[in-house]
């Protein structure tokens, strides 16, 4: 389980790339990739090892003003857990 003070960072194997065909960002890693929606992109861009999970949630709260803090936190945790499960994150412990 992720802790709010952890500072997630994309693994070395991951590259974040803008896809000009779709106007979205992609996370690329060996053999495959993930196309990110806007929220996921906001989160992935902050996975630099500097921001805590709480910092990321607060950043999103300023963008998505009509979502509750609880909902935002859940979204952030779910997405980070998805990335971690694929070995795409470090710094969660």
């Amino acid at each position, binding site marked *: 389980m992720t802790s709010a003070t952890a500072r997630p960072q994309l693994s070395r194997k991951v*590259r974040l790339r803008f896809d000009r065909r779709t106007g979205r960002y992609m996370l*690329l890693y060996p053999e495959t*990739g993930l196309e990110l929606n806007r929220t996921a992109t906001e989160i992935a861009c902050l996975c630099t090892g500097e921001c805590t999970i709480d910092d990321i949630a607060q950043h999103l709260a300023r963008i998505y003003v009509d979502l509750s803090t609880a909902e935002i936190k859940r979204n952030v945790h779910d997405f980070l857990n998805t990335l971690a*499960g694929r*070995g795409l994150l470090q710094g969660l412990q």
Partner: protein
Amino acid sequence: MNHEYRPYTLIAEITYRCPLRCPYCSNPIDYARHGAEIDTDTWLRVFHEAEALGVVQLNLTGGEPLLRDDLELFIEKASKLELYTNLITSGIPLTFERLSRFRALGLNSVQLSIQGTRPPESDRIAGAPSFHRKLEAMHWVKSLELPLTMNVVLHRDNIADIADFIKLAEDFSTDRIELANVQYLGWALQNRSALLPTREQLERARTVAEHARGRLQGKMEVVFVTPDYYSVYPKSCMDGWGRRFIVVNPEGFALPCHLAQTIPGLHFENVRQCHLEEIWHHSSSFNQFRGDGWLPDPCRTCDRRARDFGGCRCQAFHVTGNAGATDPACSLSPDHGRIESARRQASHLAGLPVLFEYRSGRGFTQT
């Protein structure tokens, strides 16, 4: 004409030359008959055209890609194009200095093949002394902090060692281990009776792999690829013909899969003469098995057709003689009996000494 498909990955087979002689090589059996390799500038142009077409992943493979001395230029160009660049290699011949250059030029990941967990077994499959050099190369990859995938091709003779392969991958802290059973095409089809495991061997290996996947989740990705000879439904070969992948072979032919040229009656364009975009959208061969208009029975009305796209076209041709047939690996295929018979043969041959026909260019000097 077809603009609904986008290629994501370019598989650049930059040479068929290789210092190893693995009996399941995915290169065509008649590789030695193929023409001259395309030059540096043509490859650089192809990478550019591929990126413009939507490609984001580049697999530099072969044969052994390290045998091209312009590999540095390819990596540099790919990096400028922001392609995620994977070097797929046997690790031979490599030096630490050259690998350091690749990294500085922007190489993103390395996939290195291991044939066995101990020198005699590994070297026997590779057909050349290579085990220690491979371990050394893996060590260099890790010391340069490059992401490392260990690729293991599983077959009857090494599938029982699966736990040792996983242990070796853990010892090297690899990011990913690919435990891929042989796909029975090309050289592997020639050697099928020596390579196909029994169902019992396969199930034991699958259990070990599943256990490791759970234990290592988030740390090391464990990928287990079942041989389609033992699956109920066929694999979605290349994620569907002409849907996501382009292969360009050493002499410049653009193909929907590595072995598409073994299917007679298809015409393939060459990147020396044609723009990749033109080929991708308009080539008769790329369009031949796209969509579901071409699907035979029983695929035509099958719920799984959007998942497996009728399976592998090369396998359909090489086993049934008809490239437009349902992949015989499918239990619903009218030709499935041929696969069942290969499985029966594997179980009769269990425990007998294995003789391979090694990959070689001999016998192909005449045209």
